[in-house]
Structures are given as structure tokens and as C-alpha cells.
């Protein structure tokens, strides 16, 4: 075990996969000497050279489109899109090309690529640089969608994503980059896609949370525990495929469910989880499901507004108290 930040864990995952498999390479804007806008690729260009850590011009369409072409011909690209809010630019390359290639060719073609993108608000970056876009991709058949909340998960899931034979949209949260945690050193350490993790056990209420909301839910759990309320916190870790069994098992135990994400609420990942549980776990529920999300508005710039906008631990605490 080593104590690493989330960003370092991601970097180690990429380094290990590049050492293991020479078909793995990185491309994106400012991923080379600059080390990535959030410092994730760091010194990888020094370790692997400019051929395998490729700085691109500002050309998202070509970054993702060429990743598709590279992936179809034997490479395993890891492409970085600087902010998740820029994923709209190469959208055709993602949803018509990467996602559908296997299906349209009747299973002949594979597109093993990873698209990494920093998600989320909280740094005063305003509307276009604070997007949370996971739901757009959850909607698209053919894509896998991953969203780790801890350094160890970041490493294990990124390694699995690189090894997967399908296109994976890999979300990272900007605020989590500096979070530290114990990370296994074992080069074969991976976490399977499609396996949720119970981050904290509890008997009174289930909170399913993604990304930074896992952190907020765990903070809320600490405070609630002081008052004798034990919440169970589940991190799906991969949104597609989604591990519904772990969630249903928990709801069977607690009878109460809150789904929390930093997304705007309408049509979010939380809507999907609600629908699944309402259908398959209706009679396990003692009361209606609650969802905690951001309001249906773009992210405001002013710190005074952004603070109100982000669904923080206090919102989880008060929602839990209304239900138990």
C-alpha cells in the first residue's frame, strides 16, 4: 500500500498499463510537458516519451475520432478531454462512432478506448467548466461509464477500463484530485467494472451516491452517527454497468433510499437508479425515494451562489432526518 492522491493513483494506473502493454498510449491537450490541466498525466511524458504521451492541438473532435480509429486497429488509447463540459464537442465521435461500432458491425469491430474527463463544480469555474455530464453517456448503449470516488478505486477502475474491450467514459472529480488514500501497489490490482462498493455499513437508511457525493455522504454519516443514526453509503463506482443487486440488498435491509449526485436533477443518473429500485424494489421501500441533486440550472460563478448550488453534506443530513 502507498498513500497517494486520487490524481497520483490515476497516473500510476496509466503508467502501469503503459508498461504492461505497449499498445496503450495517451493523448490530449497539454498532457505532455504541462502535465495536464489538473496535473494528472504529470511526468508521464518524461517516462514514456512524446510518442506515447501525445500533446494535441485544441481538437476534441479529432482526439476522440482518432482514438476510435486507433482503438479499432490494435491500439488502446487513453484520451483526456480537459473538462467534462467540453465533451459536447466530440459528441458524434462518442455516441455514433465509438459506441455503435461494435453493434453496427455485428460484433466484428472492437473499440477499446478510455476517455477521461474531469467532472464537477466547486472551483468557481462557472457554467461551461463545471459540468457534470455522466447522464448523457449513461443513456448511450455501447458505452461503459465509470466514476471513482477514492484513490484506490481510481487506480483499480482505470486499469480495468484500459483493459476493457469497449469504449469507457471515465469521469474524475476535480475536487477529489487532491484527496489522499491508501492504494495497493500490486501491478495486478484491478477493480471489476460493474461492482458497487459499500463505503459504510448502516441499518437505518441507504444512500447511493456518486463521485464527490460519496465523500459528502460519508461526512454526513459521521455526523448522523453522533446522533445514533446509521446510514449505509453505497458507491456504484460504475454507472454502466450498474450493480443493482448491491443497492437492492441494502434497501431490503434499510427500507429507505436516498440517491445523491452532483448532477442537475432532471434526467440524471439518479433518475435511472430511482426507476430501477421503484420497479424491482418497490415492496422493499417503506417510503418514497428521495433524490439529492443540484438544481436544474447551470453552475453559477459567484462563490456565494455556487455554495448554495452544490448539494453538500448538510442537504444529505436534513434529508435523512426527514426520513428516519
Amino acid at each position, binding site marked *: 500500500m502507498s498513500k497517494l492522491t486520487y490524481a497520483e493513483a490515476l497516473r500510476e494506473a496509466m503508467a502501469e498499463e503503459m508498461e504492461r502493454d505497449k499498445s496503450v498510449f495517451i493523448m490530449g491537450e497539454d498532457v505532455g510537458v504541462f502535465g495536464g490541466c489538473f496535473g494528472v498525466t504529470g511526468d508521464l511524458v518524461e517516462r514514456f516519451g512524446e510518442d506515447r504521451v501525445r500533446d494535441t*492541438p485544441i481538437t476534441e473532435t479529432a482526439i476522440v475520432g482518432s482514438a476510435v480509429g486507433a482503438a479499432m486497429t490494435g491500439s488502446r488509447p487513453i484520451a483526456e478531454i480537459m473538462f467534462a463540459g467540453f465533451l459536447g464537442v466530440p459528441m458524434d465521435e462518442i455516441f455514433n462512432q465509438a459506441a455503435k461500432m461494435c453493434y453496427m458491425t455485428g460484433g466484428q469491430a472492437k473499440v477499446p478506448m478510455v476517455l477521461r474527463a474531469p467532472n464537477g463544480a466547486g472551483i468557481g469555474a462557472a457554467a*461551461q467548466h463545471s459540468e457534470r455530464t455522466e447522464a448523457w453517456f449513461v443513456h448511450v448503449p455501447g458505452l461503459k461509464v465509470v466514476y471513482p470516488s477514492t484513490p484506490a478505486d481510481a487506480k483499480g477502475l482505470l486499469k480495468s477500463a484500459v483493459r476493457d474491450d469497449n469504449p469507457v467514459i471515465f469521469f474524475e472529480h476535480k475536487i477529489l484530485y487532491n484527496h489522499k488514500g491508501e492504494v495497493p501497489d500490486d501491478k495486478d490490482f484491478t477493480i471489476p467494472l460493474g461492482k458497487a462498493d459499500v463505503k459504510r455499513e448502516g441499518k437505518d437508511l441507504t444512500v447511493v451516491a456518486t463521485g464527490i457525493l460519496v465523500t459528502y455522504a460519508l461526512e454526513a454519516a459521521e455526523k448522523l452517527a453522533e446522533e445514533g443514526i446509521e446510514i449505509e453509503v453505497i458507491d456504484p463506482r460504475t454507472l454502466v454497468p450498474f450493480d443493482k443487486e448491491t443497492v437492492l440488498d441494502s434497501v431490503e435491509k434499510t427500507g429507505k433510499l436516498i440517491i445523491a449526485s452532483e448532477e442537475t436533477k432532471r434526467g440524471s443518473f439518479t433518475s435511472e437508479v430511482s426507476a430501477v429500485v421503484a420497479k424491482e424494489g418497490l415492496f422493499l421501500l417503506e417510503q418514497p425515494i428521495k433524490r439529492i441533486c443540484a438544481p436544474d440550472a447551470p453552475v*453559477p460563478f459567484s462563490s456565494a451562489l455556487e455554495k448554495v448550488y452544490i448539494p453538500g453534506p448538510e442537504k444529505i443530513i436534513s434529508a435523512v432526518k426527514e426520513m428516519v
Partner: protein
Amino acid sequence: MKESKDKMIQMLEDMMVIREFESTVQKHFAEGEIPGFVHLYLGEEAVAVGACNALEEKDYITSTHRGHGHLLARGGDVNKMMAEIFGKATGYNKGKGGSMHIADVSLGILGANGIVGAGLPIAAGSGITSQILDTGAVTLCFFGDGASNRGTFHEAINLASIWNLPVVFVCENNMYAISMPQYRSDGRKGQNIKDVSDRAVAYGISGVTVDGNDVMAVNEAVTEAVKKARNGGGPSLVECKTYRHRGHFEGDPTVYRSDEELEEWKKKDPISRFKNLLKDQELLDDAEYDELKEKVEARIKEAVDFSQNSPDPDPSEVTTDVYYGEGV
């Protein structure tokens, strides 16, 4: 001559306002009073000032993430601008936009954009309105060298060309897109041509490259392009070669460029150059310059006071303005 003297002094003052405004933002950002990212325009003042002074009131511009200079050159209110950057309720965008998105729509500013290259098609669309409504307005589109590698650059200029749209595309080539050099003979580069304006020929429009640190050169080239556009001559591409004195954003350690390179460019500083030119031509003396400087400093200081004394936006503002007008 009198008219041209007044215009030249005005352009000097406009550049000085940008310089003072940006240096002040730099200072308050360092002190932690400003959230988010700020991309300063220091060193590039001649481009915005030369270009905007070629426009009429009814004209439009599209701005970028590095947009403070564009808005100031277009006559933006420094109080409302500074307050926006501070995230205050009295800012141009009520604190919702911040540094990357400040805009005064009443001045014909079609948004300052955080998405690199997004302004080019928007400018083309504004050109369509000029044709449809026969307004005689010209749209000036600011974008960077980095933006010229996006598909939007190619698609928008092609569209403007085939439809003969009254748009002037002004490329602010400051030699870098974050860490990526626009051109270098070897090594990493954004493109394999020295001049972005070379691309004009591929779309059948005129393209020129000018010294972007020479406000008169910028003004002359853009004035000609605006005249052509207004007279039905279609779009042009004007590339202005310049350099940013600061990092890409505040906090950028600029590992990708040398101190010597920066020093070379500082010798070509657009403001001291223009000031010296005016002095040589005896259009300005030291006392007049000092007076101008004091006036500019007082104006920006007042903007800071105004911002610091302004209230934060009310929390209820989070969900207003999602749709134009009232309700959903």
C-alpha cells in the same frame, strides 16, 4: 490631424485602462478575492483596442475566455466588470458568469465564451442577421491561435465565405494555446504553418498578418476589413501576432516557454511603444501621459472599491435566468 490625434490618444488610454484593469485583477486574484480562473490580456492590449476602434456602435463582437480586454475596448463599464469578476450581485452578469463570461449584450457583445472556438460560428450567424434584416452591422470575431485548430474555425469561415457574410475574423496569435506552441520548426506544435492567415486562401477570403503589438497596424488592417465587409465584400481574416505577458491563467508556472522569450516580447510592449511614438510625433508629452495614467488608475481603483462594497448575489438567484423572460 486633430481628429486623428484625438483618436490616437483615445487608443492609448484604452490600452492603459486594460493594462491597469488586468494588473489589478492579477493582484486581487493573488490575494484570494477572486474565485475560479482568470486569463489576463496583459501584453495583448493593442489587438482589442486597434480592432474595436474600427467598429461602429451597431456592430457586434464575439469574445473569448481571455475577454476582459475586448469588453473594455468596446467601452465596458469598469465597475460592473470588476464586480462580475469578484462574483458580486452588481456585476454585469449578476455574478453568474465571472471572468470567463462577462458580457454587456447592449454593447453588441455576443457572450464571452469558455469553449475555445465557439465564437466563430456564432459570429457567422450574426452576419446572417445583418443580411436578413439588412442592418449594415459588421461582426468582429476574436479567437486565438489555438482556436484555429478546431473544426468550428474551418466550418464557420467557409460558411461566411460562401454566403459572403459581413464578418471579420481576428486571430489573436499569442504564440501559445496553454502550453502548445502555435508553430515551431521542430517539436510539438499546434500547426505546421507559421501564419494562421495562410488558411484564408483555402476558403477564398483575404487574409493578412499584422504586428499585433502595433495598435495602428491592427486598427488599419481591421478598419479595411470592416469597410469591405460593410460594403458587401464579405469576410476577412486578420491575424495579429502578439504575446501574453502572464501565464495562460493565473497560477500557470509557464514551464513551456523561456524567460528570454518573454523579455524579448516585453521590449515590444504595445503600450510603451505607442506612447513613445506619440511622444516622437509630439502628440503627447510626459505631463499629459502622467495625467492620463492618474486618471486611469483612479478609475480602476474606484471599480475595486465598488466591487468590494457590493453585496453577494441573493441565493435565490441560483435558479433565475435559466430561461429568458419569466417562468419556465
